[in-house]
C-alpha cells in the first residue's frame, strides 16, 4: 500500500517529465533517422543520411564554431565579473542594497527587451556606443553590420545580462563563509589577495562549478537576442546552434534535419556536463 502511495505522489511530476522531456527527446532521436515528409512525399527511413548531410553543411560548421567562440567569450568573463561584483557588494559600503539591485537588474529584464535596447545602443551614429565614441573623436562603427564585430558585440550584451545573475550565487556563498577565517587570516597577517587566492576562491569552488554548468548551458540555450539583433547575420556571422535549429525547423520546415541538429546539441550538452562534473569534482571542496 505504501508503495502505491509513493507512486501516486510521483505520478504528476513523472507525467510532465515523460510527456515534455523524455518522450520528445526520444522522438527527436527517432525523427533524425527519417526524411522530412510532405503530403506529396511521405517521410521515409534514411538511416544516417541526415547526419551525413550535417557533416557536409558549411552553415552547421560555421554556427558550431560561432557557438564555441560565444561560449569561450562569455563564460569566463561573466564568471569573473560576477565574482568581482559579489566581493565588492559583500563589503560594507554606502547604499549597498541599491548597488546590489543595480547589478541584478539586467537579469530581471526579459532578453527580448534587452535586445531591443541594445539594438539601439549598437546603431551606427545614433547609438550610445557611437555617441560616446564620438566625444573622443572615434569614427562610427557598424557594430552589428560587420562580420568581425557582430559576435563580440552580442557577447558583450550577454555578459552584461548574465553576470548579475551569477553574482547572486556568489553573494550567497560569500555570506555563508565563516567569519573566523578572515579573522584568523588577519592575525596571521595574510594580505587580501593571498586570502582571496588561498581561502575565498577555493571555498567558492562549489558555487563556481554550479555557475559554470549553468553558464555553459545558457551559452547554448540563449538565442532570443538573435531574433531582434541580427537574425543570425550578416551571412551567419552571429548565428548560434539553437537559432540555426529554429531556422531549419520553422523557416525551412525541414523537421528531419532539425531533429538531427537537435540530437547533436543534446549530445554536446550532455558531454560537456559530464566532463565538467568529472574534471572539476576533483578540485571542488565540499564540506
Amino acid at each position: 500500500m505504501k508503495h502505491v502511495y509513493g507512486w501516486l505522489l510521483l505520478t504528476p511530476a513523472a507525467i510532465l517529465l515523460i510527456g515534455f522531456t523524455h518522450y520528445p527527446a526520444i522522438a527527436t532521436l527517432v525523427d533524425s533517422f527519417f526524411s522530412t515528409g510532405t503530403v506529396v512525399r511521405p517521410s521515409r527511413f534514411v538511416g544516417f543520411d541526415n547526419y551525413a548531410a550535417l557533416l557536409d553543411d558549411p552553415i552547421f560548421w560555421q554556427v558550431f564554431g560561432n557557438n564555441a567562440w560565444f561560449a569561450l567569450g562569455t563564460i569566463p568573463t561573466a564568471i569573473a565579473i560576477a565574482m568581482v561584483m559579489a566581493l565588492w557588494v559583500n563589503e560594507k559600503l554606502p547604499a549597498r542594497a541599491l548597488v546590489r539591485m543595480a547589478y541584478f537588474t539586467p537579469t530581471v529584464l526579459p532578453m527580448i527587451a534587452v535586445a531591443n535596447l541594445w539594438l539601439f545602443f549598437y546603431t551606427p551614429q545614433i547609438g550610445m556606443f557611437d555617441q560616446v565614441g564620438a566625444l573622443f573623436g572615434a569614427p562610427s562603427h557598424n557594430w552589428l553590420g560587420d562580420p568581425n564585430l557582430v559576435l563580440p558585440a552580442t557577447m558583450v550584451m550577454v555578459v552584461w545580462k548574465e553576470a548579475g545573475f551569477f553574482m547572486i550565487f556568489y553573494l550567497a556563498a560569500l555570506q555563508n563563509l565563516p567569519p573566523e577565517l578572515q579573522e584568523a587570516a588577519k592575525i596571521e597577517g595574510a594580505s587580501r589577495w593571498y586570502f582571496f587566492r588561498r581561502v575565498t576562491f577555493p571555498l567558492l569552488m562549489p558555487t563556481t562549478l554550479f555557475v559554470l554548468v549553468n553558464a555553459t548551458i545558457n551559452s547554448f540555450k540563449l538565442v532570443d537576442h538573435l531574433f531582434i539583433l541580427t537574425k543570425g547575420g550578416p551571412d551567419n556571422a552571429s548565428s548560434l546552434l539553437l537559432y540555426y535549429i529554429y531556422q531549419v525547423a520553422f523557416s525551412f520546415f525541414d523537421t528531419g534535419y532539425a531533429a538531427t541538429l537537435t540530437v547533436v546539441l543534446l549530445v554536446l550538452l550532455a558531454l560537456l556536463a559530464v566532463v565538467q562534473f568529472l574534471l572539476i569534482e576533483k578540485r571542488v571542496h565540499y564540506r
Partner: protein
Amino acid sequence: MKWLSAFLMSVLLAAVGPASAQTQLTFYYPIAVGGPLTKVIDGYARQFEQEHPGIKVNPIYAGNYDDARIKALAALKAGQSAPLSVLYSIDLYELIEQDVIVAWDDVATTPDDKAWLKAFYPALMMNGTYKNKVYGIPFQRSTIVLYWNKDAFKEAGLDPDRPPANWTEMVQMASKLVKRDAAGNVTRWGVMVPSTGYAYWMFQAFARQNGQDLMNRDGNQTNFAHPDVIAALQYWRDLGVKHKVMPEGTVEWGTLRQAFTEGKTAMMWHTTGNLTAVKDTAKFPFGVAMLPASKQRGSPTGGGNFYMFKKTTPEERKAALAFVKWMTAPERAADWSMATGYVATRPDAYTTPKLKEYAAGFPQAVVARDQFEFATPELSTFQTGRVRKQLDDAIQATLTGQKSPADALNAAQAEADKLLKSYR
C-alpha cells in the same frame, strides 16, 4: 464518476451548441497580441457579424507570419476547423506542397464572385496565383519606396522636390548629401538600404530595376547568376565601398527608420508599411517617391494574403467567401490603407471619397499605388525558406566584403538549383 460525465457533457454541449445555430468562422491573423491593429480587425469582425447574422467570426491573433503559419498548420493537423487565414503571400508554394489550401476559383463561382477575383491590382495577384488559379486574395500588402529628407536636399543645394529618378542620379545626389564633421567622420549618409532581415526583398528591387526577375512563375527556377543580377548587387555594394554614400557592411532594418527621422541619412529605401510612423515622427518635411530606375523602375510587392484551407465544410466555405469579399470591398480597403499605411488592394478603393480626400492632403500615400505598374512578385519558390536564405547570405557576404558579387550569387544559384531540381 457521475460528476465527471456531467462535466464532460456540459463541455461537449458548450462546444457543439452555438455551432449548430451559427457558422463559426475562425481565422488566423498574424500580429502581436494587443497591437492597435487588433482593434481594427476586431471592429471589422463585429461589423461583419452585424451585417451577416448566422456567421460568427473568431479572429485568432498569432504573432508574426511564421508563427501564424505554424499555428494554423498545427491546428489543421490537430483536426481543428480553421477555414481561413491571413498568411505571408510567399508561403504559397509551401502551402500547396502541404496540400492544405483550395483555390478561390473553385469557391467563387457566381459571375459576381468572378468579377470580384478580377477587381484587384494584377501586381498583387502574382504572388497568389499558381497554374492560373488564384489561391491568395491580397489583403495587407506593401511595396518598397524611397523616402527623402527635403531639408537635407535644400542644405546640399539640391531641389527639395526632385528625388533621384535613376541609379546615376541617386549616386550623384547622395554624394552631395553626405556630410562630414571636422575629423572627417560622416554625420549624415546619402542613402541607406536595409540589408538585415529582408535583404532578398530589397535586392529584388535592384534586380528588377536592372531588368531581371529572380524566379520563374512556377517557383522552381531561380535567376541569381544572370550578369545583370550580378551587376545589380555590384551597384548596391558600390554605394558603400566605391561611392561612400552608404555605410559599409549591413544596414539594420529595425533601426533604419530612426536613422532617417534623426537625420542620419538623407534618403532611405523602406517599406510603405513605415509611412504612417515616419509621418508621425519626422520633424522635417519629407517626400516619398518611386525607387530609381536603371533599365526600368521596379519594386517587389510584399505582405499577407487570405488563404482558404481545404478541410472545410461547404457552409464554412460560403461564410469564408462572404467574409473575405466583405473585408476586401473598396470601402474597407480604403479604410484599412489609411489605418495602416498598407496599399489599398484595388483601383476602385482609390476612388472612394474618403481615400481621395486623404490622398489630397497626404500625396505620399499614393506613390506605392502608382509604382504597381512596375511591380514584381516577392521572391517565392518551392523550398522557399532555404532558397531565400541562400540569397540573403550571398547579399550579406557581398555587402560585408567577404565575397565578390559574382562568387556569392553563383554559389547561391548552384545551391538553389540543387534544392529545386526535384520540382522541375
